[in-house]
């Protein structure tokens, strides 16, 4: 009980509350601006949180991401431009609703069900994470090795449209993670005699490069002058909400559940949760013909799903140190920087930090209601901020943020190189999210692999000899076999007609 009391004390501190409030406004803004994503918001926040204690640092990230995922719904409805990829699934539907004059209802539903979906995901996180941690406390390097393999495989399998390119991206990330001193023997690798590279590829500048700079490069070539015009005014948001709730409460629970499960799976986050739940909603609806014409049903499902995924993504991140999506991949990087290695031992050693994260999550979702309301009301002004002013400012933030991570130009150079590389990869259709997962998990994977190899004396069978490790190992190997089968010509021929 004392840990919970301590956690409340940690969160309800004027400084922490101010940080939460500030990052909430920041998240709302970034989420509402088309072209700036929730991942980018997190990447830009990390250099700032670097200088904070763990609780405000985590609070800033939790709050900003929760807000950004909701705020993405606003321009989706008003301009048909999703503010973040997580709102893309139902942007057309929302826009059709606006054209029919139902903007109020759409915004109200997005706000209310984002808050409720977010809280649903957090409740599952609160119930499930400590229970899973008790199981995970008995894990050895074998289980962790398989868990990391399984997580990475899921990331490639679920999270990307083209598994082959996803897998390549993952391997590139693991390869980049090899730069620096190797975790088992202390041997410098791939450093080319460079002192900066000896400490490894710094995670934050890489992140800023891949998620922010590459986005800026894409933004620079599609730049139109001036801001965006919103024509329709927003009236009463709560009108008709009771009716929607009575009619579609099942959709809410279904969407939240799908969002939570997908969020908790490694590698897939809020955007995939929204796509899947929207598709499920259409399939199971009594009136599927209305979908796409400005029908609220699918929006209820999808807007609940993407917000519930935000909280659920923290389950594997906190319990196993395996990220549920690219945002929690950043979180894990932050946790390592703060010297708190994510994993079940955090639940035993510093439970107050875990409780603090839970409290902040609930707080952030409650705060979403008034702030989201304000954001909807002032959307006209927010969306008028011209991109040609925003883009150079973000560029300066990126460079200063990367500089601050190393206190030298090495950070900036790394950011530029990774930004260009990330841009190149995305142009080739190679997603960068698996690369970031690989970079984050690389060291843990190698460490557990090497110590398992040494324990098992080089016998691969040793990797399967413990019951849980065996189960995880067989599951991973089956998944790999399935992937190879699908990649082979025979497998593809069979799969095609389905």
């Amino acid at each position, binding site marked *: 009980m004392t840990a919970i009391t301590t956690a409340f004390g940690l969160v309800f501190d004027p400084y922490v509350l101010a940080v939460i409030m500030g990052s909430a406004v920041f998240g709302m803004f970034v989420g509402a601006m088309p072209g700036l994503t929730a991942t980018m918001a997190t990447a830009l926040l990390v250099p700032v949180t670097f200088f904070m204690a763990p609780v405000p640092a985590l609070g800033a990230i939790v709050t900003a991401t929760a807000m950004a995922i909701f705020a993405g719904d606003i321009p989706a409805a008003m301009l048909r431009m999703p503010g973040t990829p997580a709102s893309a699934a139902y942007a057309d539907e929302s826009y059709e609703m606006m054209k029919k004059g139902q903007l109020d209802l759409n915004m109200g539903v997005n706000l209310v069900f984002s808050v409720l979906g977010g809280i649903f995901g957090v409740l599952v996180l609160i119930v499930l994470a400590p229970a899973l941690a008790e199981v995970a406390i008995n894990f050895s390097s074998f289980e962790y090795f398989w868990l990391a393999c399984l997580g990475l495989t899921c990331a490639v399998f679920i999270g990307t449209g083209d598994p082959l390119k996803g897998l390549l991206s993952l391997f590139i990330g*693991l390869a980049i993670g090899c730069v620096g001193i*190797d975790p088992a*023997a202390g041997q410098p690798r*791939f450093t080319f005699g460079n002192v900066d590279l000896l400490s490894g590829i710094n995670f934050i500048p890489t992140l800023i490069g891949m998620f922010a700079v590459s986005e800026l490069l894409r933004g620079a070539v599609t730049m139109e002058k001036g801001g965006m015009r919103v024509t329709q005014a927003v009236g009463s948001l709560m009108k008709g909400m009771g009716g929607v709730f009575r009619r579609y409460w099942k959709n809410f629970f279904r969407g939240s559940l799908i969002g939570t499960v997908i969020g908790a799976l490694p590698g897939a986050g809020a955007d995939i949760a929204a796509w899947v739940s929207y598709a499920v909603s259409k399939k199971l609806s009594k009136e599927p013909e209305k979908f796409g014409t400005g029908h609220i049903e699918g929006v209820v499902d999808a807007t609940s799903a993407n917000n519930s995924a935000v909280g659920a993504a923290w389950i594997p991140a906190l319990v196993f140190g395996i990220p549920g999506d690219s945002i929690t991949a950043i979180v894990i990087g932050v946790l390592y920087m703060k010297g708190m290695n994510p994993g079940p031992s955090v639940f035993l050693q510093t439970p107050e930090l875990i409780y603090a994260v839970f409290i902040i999550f609930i707080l952030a979702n409650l705060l979403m209601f008034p702030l989201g309301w304000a954001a909807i009301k002032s959307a006209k002004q927010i969306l008028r901020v011209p991109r040609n002013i925003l883009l150079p400012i973000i560029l300066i933030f990126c460079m200063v943020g990367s500089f601050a991570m190393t206190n030298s130009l090495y950070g900036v150079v790394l950011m530029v190189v990774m930004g260009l590389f990330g841009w190149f990869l995305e142009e*080739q259709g190679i997603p960068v999210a698996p690369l970031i997962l690989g970079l984050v998990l690389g060291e843990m994977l190698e460490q557990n692999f090497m110590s398992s190899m040494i324990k098992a004396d080089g016998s691969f069978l040793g990797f399967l000899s413990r019951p849980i490790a065996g189960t995880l190992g067989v599951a991973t190997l089956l998944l790999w076999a399935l992937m190879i089968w699908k990649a082979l010509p025979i497998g593809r021929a069979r799969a095609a007609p389905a």
Partner: protein
Amino acid sequence: MRFNDAVVGALFILLAGAMIAMTFSFPPFPGQKYGPSLFPRIIASGIILCSAMLVLRGLKERREAGGPWLGLADWMHRPHRLASFALMMAAMVFYILASEPLGFILTAFLIQLCLFLWFGVRPLTALLVAVIMTGLVQYFFGSLMRVPLPRGILDSIL
């Protein structure tokens, strides 16, 4: 700017090959069968495997559908857009080269001003925003967060 998958695959096969070649210079882990070269070799093999499949896929695509080795994006044919891209890169390179001799304040101000003007912000607005944002960033990171942003020529003036 999209290369045919075969080109991308070939590029990564070369890189992974270089990576494996480098692992041969790593000393073995004393007393163990497996050293620091094992893991990078597994990863590099993975890259080669994936890339080889990309090469096959790219060649098949060329055989069946034709298509160029390198497809240029729409904006690459438009000089103004191409210049925007180059300018963004130039801004970052300029920061790396100039921030230490000139100092953060002047470098950040110049970068913002140039980019604002290039992207068509009105001169007065551009000047004002550049001054205000440079000041804010310097205050926030330099004073509050104590990041040692380079002072550059300010040292000789103040």
